């Protein structure tokens, strides 16, 4: 069985860690005006952040907030920590940016740094590189947050002993509309059971996502 030991949510103007608001802007702003100050306040300096596309920036800040003080590599091997992410818009913002750079044949200068982010699973790679995780990672495109799919995929990896800890959830951005909700699911054989963690099951995931 897996337990949900931590969650992070990022909405249009707030960052939550479990039930606590850890960062807030008074008004809703565009994504870049929100994520950069949030990153500076919540994360340790990491120059590569500024090179990431919007989807990776969103996933990165969410993961940094959630993984803070978890020290996962002291409990699991690097191959036992992995990801199952879902999103709807894939890398649409970056795709648009890339398209803009190639639409004029007389001014045709596609940017390699933009092009590399036209694959949504790059956001998982960024988190893996930062944290040294080597486990299975999966990114699925789904019209909306699909609790069953998340549960099934994480359970499959856990039951097949591919993962002992999984960072899983929804990270989505289209233009300036963004939303992230991620959970840390860990094996109950490793987690401190004296703490009151929720079970990783369909109804709990649903409840947490819609809270």
């Amino acid at each position, binding site marked *: 069985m897996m337990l949900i030991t931590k969650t992070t949510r990022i909405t249009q103007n707030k960052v939550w860690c479990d039930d606590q608001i850890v960062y807030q802007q008074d008004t809703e702003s565009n994504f870049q005006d929100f994520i950069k100050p949030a990153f500076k306040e919540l994360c340790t*300096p990491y*120059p590569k952040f*500024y*090179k990431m596309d919007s989807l990776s920036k969103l996933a990165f800040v969410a993961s940094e907030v959630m993984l803070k003080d978890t020290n996962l590599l002291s409990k699991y091997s690097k191959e036992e920590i992995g990801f199952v992410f879902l999103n709807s818009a894939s890398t649409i913002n970056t795709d648009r940016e890339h398209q803009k750079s190639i639409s004029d044949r007389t001014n045709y*200068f*596609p*940017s*390699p*740094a933009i092009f*590399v982010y036209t694959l949504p699973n790059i956001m998982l790679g960024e988190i893996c590189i930062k944290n040294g995780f080597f486990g299975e990672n999966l990114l699925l495109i789904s019209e909306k947050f699909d609790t069953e799919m998340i549960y099934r995929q994480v359970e499959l990896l856990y039951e097949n002993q591919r993962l002992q800890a999984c960072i899983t959830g929804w990270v989505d951005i289209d233009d300036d509309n963004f939303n992230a909700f991620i959970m840390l699911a860990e094996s109950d054989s490793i987690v401190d059971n004296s703490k009151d963690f929720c079970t990783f099951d369909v109804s709990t995931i649903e409840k947490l996502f819609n809270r």
Partner: protein
Amino acid sequence: MSQLLKNYLTDNKEQFMEEQELIEKLRIEIIKQLNLEDLKPEDIDPDAALFGEGLGLDSIDALELIVLLEKNYGIKIEDPKDGKRIFASIRTMAKYIQDNQKA
């Protein structure tokens, strides 16, 4: 001072000024192109290595620099093996641009 020497010194001074201006321009362009948001132009030593120990740029940054040369200066690097020499530092880039724009 002979006229010949005067001309030589003037030419060299102009060339030096051109190189300095180009270095300043490249510092700004590189920060913008490579999203080095935590750096100011004056933080980049024109003689420091761009890759490895210096600015710590990666392979994607190298491709971006190739695009920068072509887009901003109309210079196309035909042989990728030349990249290591051209992109050793900001100064080597500036020198390469000067040499190849004049050609």
